[in-house]
């Protein structure tokens, strides 16, 4: 299902909502991950304190990012790592291609990296005639299908076993049954070959540690280790905000990330990689490169509303918690990063409110994303800021602007308000049945095509106020004399030092 060409989130969501398997799969998986996170965070205990500590570490690091980045660079260079800077995705691609060219690379094996998705590196490699192989099982599946990830942790969440068997059978040149063990076995054997023949291994970076110049990788399958152990050259793609100051801080991130992502105490592999292999080592890369990418990240710095966006540790908990994501799936967001984080990150990185603002509307502002976030990023507030930006810059629909103008005209004068309510109550009569409006007409259509609109009350609260006020007054006057006496008694006994609620 390729929805990237559809222009709005509404259109893409329509396609997703019609795909029953996709909806079931997304619901099932996100539910499982979400309950896994809850259990794991409860088992760990003091979860709020861990979250707060995680938030503080990320806040501090981003607020002093130039300092920690400089420290990281110095320490990484001291271990023999080659550091490169890329302000844009084009620059990052160009540097990676330069390395590949110098190595006369024919094939590149990749472990999961959202940054490499973000800069569309595979296309560049392929057009240079270099094979780029995604080695995370889920990424491998969607690469064979020619699609993009629909979930940050489980990229092929939208594919069923039969579809995977079809894709793998084509690759194998023989029919494979839709059996998970056999399919995974095929992928293991096939990718093993690819690891052993690859010239370059390419990884992402979960955290970069300033005090040691190391990168850390979290993975369950072991492909990130393969990619950083077997090929002779390693290239790591790193968003410039991935830094944490010390190894001590890694304990906090290692507590938060796996529990929030999959409900595990720790991913099967957590690797701290510091420079290329040492002179006497027999495995690991001989040459190690880290490309540090900005690509719109620095636009968030110094912006009080969006700077915290850079605190994100890419766990995907907000996707699993989001009622909108659970219904429409990742592809509806139309970009690499989906869910609540994607809805804010995509327009923020692009610095382009006009083109991508519509995904900011794909949220109910319920705040479930913020509650799930291990570093407490206020994503729901950011979505409101985005909508405000959109309105400020005049990107709202003409009908919406007209509606708000009308609203102001009516609401700023109580006589006009009263009159319009009266007219509305009369005017709605043909549309109301059983106290609700379901007709999909005129300006109501946007609301009523998916749910009922409540009808205007026959008698407004304003009209009822005088009667209500009188009722209240008379009740107060008519207090039961017995109760009055009892209360007086209680007050009296308190005064004498009797029992109190202290």
């Amino acid at each position, binding site marked *: 299902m390729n929805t990237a060409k559809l222009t709005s989130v509404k259109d893409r969501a329509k396609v997703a909502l019609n795909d029953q398997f996709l909806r079931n799969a997304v619901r099932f998986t996100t539910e499982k991950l979400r309950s896994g996170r809850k259990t794991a965070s409860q088992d760990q205990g003091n979860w709020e304190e861990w979250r707060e500590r995680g938030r503080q570490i990320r806040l501090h690091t981003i607020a002093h990012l130039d300092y920690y980045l400089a420290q990281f660079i110095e320490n990484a260079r001291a271990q023999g790592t080659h550091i490169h800077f890329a302000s844009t995705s084009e620059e990052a691609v160009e540097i990676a291609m330069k390395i590949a060219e110098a190595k006369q690379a024919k094939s590149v094996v990749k472990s999961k990296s959202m940054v490499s998705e973000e800069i569309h590196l595979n296309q560049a490699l392929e057009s240079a005639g270099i094979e780029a192989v995604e080695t995370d099982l889920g990424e491998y599946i969607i690469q064979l299908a020619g699609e993009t990830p629909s979930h940050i942790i489980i990229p092929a969440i939208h*594919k069923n076993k039969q579809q995977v068997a079809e894709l793998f059978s084509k690759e194998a040149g023989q029919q494979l049954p839709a059996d998970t063990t056999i399919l995974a076995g095929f992928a293991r054997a096939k990718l093993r070959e690819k690891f052993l023949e690859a010239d370059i291994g390419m990884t992402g970076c979960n955290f970069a540690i300033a005090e040691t110049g*190391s990168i850390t990788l979290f993975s369950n*399958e072991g492909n990130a280790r393969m990619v950083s152990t077997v090929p002779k050259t390693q290239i790591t793609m790193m968003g410039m905000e991935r830094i944490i*100051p010390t190894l001590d*801080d890694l304990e906090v991130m290692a507590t938060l990330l796996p529990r929030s992502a999959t409900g595990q105490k720790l991913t099967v*592999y957590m690797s701290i990689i510091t*420079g290329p292999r040492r002179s006497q080592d027999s495995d690991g890369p001989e040459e190690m490169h880290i490309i540090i990418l*900005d690509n719109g990240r620095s636009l968030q710095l110094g912006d009080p509303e969006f700077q915290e966006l850079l605190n994100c540790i890419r766990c995907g908990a907000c996707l699993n918690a989001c009622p909108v994501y659970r219904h429409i799936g990742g592809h509806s967001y139309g970009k690499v990063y989906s869910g609540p984080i994607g809805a804010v990150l995509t327009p923020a990185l692009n610095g382009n409110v006009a083109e991508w603002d519509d995904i900011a509307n794909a949220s109910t502002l319920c705040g479930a994303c913020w509650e799930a976030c291990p570093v407490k990023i206020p994503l729901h507030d950011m979505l409101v800021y985005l909508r405000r930006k959109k309105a400020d810059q005049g990107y709202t629909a003409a009908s919406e602007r007209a509606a708000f103008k009308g609203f102001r005209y009516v609401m700023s004068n109580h006589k006009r308000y009263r009159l319009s309510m009266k007219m509305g109550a009369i005017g709605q009569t043909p549309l109301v049945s059983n106290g609700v409006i379901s007709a999909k007409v005129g300006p109501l259509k946007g609301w009523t095509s998916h749910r009922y609109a409540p009808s205007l009350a026959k008698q407004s609260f304003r009209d009822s106020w005088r009667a209500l006020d009188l009722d209240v007054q008379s009740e107060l006057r008519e207090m039961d004399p017995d109760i009055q006496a009892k209360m007086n008694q209680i007050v009296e006994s308190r005064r004498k030092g009797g029992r109190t609620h202290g």
Partner: protein
Amino acid sequence: MAKSSGYLAELEERSKRRQEEFLNNIRTRLGRSSNTPVHPFRGAPDFWLNYDLTQQERIDLFMENWRKVGGEAIQVGSMEEAKTYISDVTQTMQARYLLCFDQPELVEMKLAQTCPGTDVTFWNPDRESELLAKAAGTDIGIGIVDYAVAHTGTILAMSNPYKGRAISLLPTAFMAVIKAETIRTRMGEVLKEVRGLHEAGEMPAGVHFVTGPSRSADIENDLTIGVHGPGVMYAVVVG
């Protein structure tokens, strides 16, 4: 190599040229001076630092967690008993190729003698060219690991010339031999040891924490074991 080093010099020169501009842009946007920041919240919260278990509690918790993620765990009294266990597993699994860390205690086990017909290789710089291919065809990788973490059921293997990274990764199974006194309660304690190595200028290139067999849930959420890394993980706690 001339061409290769030429491109490195060119990229290095460009990197140094770009660095200041790249970092300055960040500093300017943050409105920051170039002062060294005070680091107010470092590492785990205080209550966590006080969490400590006795050695036997650590062993028990480690084994419980290791089993929960699908690993095999056993506690033995001595290296001699560990050797017996390893030989038994090798023979029951009909393993033909073993690849071991080149550590004196493992060499002394003389596994080639106790398991006739089994090819035993030790990871050593002398055999550099053949080791990776060997690892890919190995049935069981064996190593005395550096540390273990009880709270998460994790082992830690650090690379050095005699302890290749591939041994805990490419073989079908991996046997981690763990000396009881190297099991810590929290990961933070082990990370402190790693920092110690860094400060001594002896940081290994690869520090690998491993928590059970390789796994994936990428196909319809079906748990699959042994996708790229070992599908069977043994832990032998000695002591």
